[in-house]
């Protein structure tokens, strides 16, 4: 039987408040009992989440206000932390396969590259006028 911990946030789609998401991720991970993650793992999840939500702010709600719903979950049976981001903004059209290697001089594509490098799973889909991003990382 898995011990699934879930937490949800509803944030304004604004760069100003994305730090709240990072703080929630860190606090939640620090309360995982048996196998607390390392500082590096916490940072990597915070950064991946920051990059996904920055993409949403930048692309989904250009010139208008919007919300980002974030669902955090930790499954202790498989020691996996998952984050699902949903928004009702414009479809994300720049979802090309991120580069496998990044030359530091490339400014574009760095966000997607980082997400892919920092987590084990990354998926995007558009369902009924809703964008859904899902990232997951094993913490074992």
């Amino acid at each position: 039987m898995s011990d699934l911990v879930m937490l949800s946030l509803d944030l304004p789609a604004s760069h100003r408040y994305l730090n709240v998401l990072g703080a929630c991720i860190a606090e939640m991970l620090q309360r995982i009992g048996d196998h607390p993650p390392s500082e590096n793992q916490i940072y990597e999840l915070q950064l991946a989440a920051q990059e996904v939500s920055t993409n949403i702010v930048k692309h989904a709600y250009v010139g208008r206000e919007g919300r980002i719903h974030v669902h955090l979950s930790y499954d202790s049976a498989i020691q996996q932390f998952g984050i699902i981001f949903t928004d009702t903004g414009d479809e994300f059209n720049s979802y090309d396969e991120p580069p496998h290697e990044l030359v530091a001089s490339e400014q574009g594509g760095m966000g997607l590259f980082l997400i892919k490098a920092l987590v084990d799973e990354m998926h995007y889909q558009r369902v009924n006028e809703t964008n859904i991003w899902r990232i997951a990382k094993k913490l074992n």
Partner: protein
Amino acid sequence: MIDIRISERVIRYYVVELGGRLDAFNAPELRQQFQMLLADGANQVILDLQRVEFMDSAALAALISLLKQARQGAGEVQMIPPRSEAARRILSLTKFDQVFPIIATVDEAVKTR
């Protein structure tokens, strides 16, 4: 009569100390500060990131932009990396530690020129 010419060369270094969280929210202000620095004539910059706790791609892009502009003016931007191991790892992942000359102290920057 000896043939001798004596001239003074002064290299001015600008040390930019950054700390805390650098992200998409404050990256525009960071870029603006860098533009002001370059407009002041700075082209030898030392970025001291020891107190930086978190950087995202928007912040990294601002750093790269500073480097490119400084080098276009025949200058250089050297970097003292963050104390945070996690933040340093991101610089390695993005190969920023290969693009920026990495130094341990401000004194080291002066000695290597």
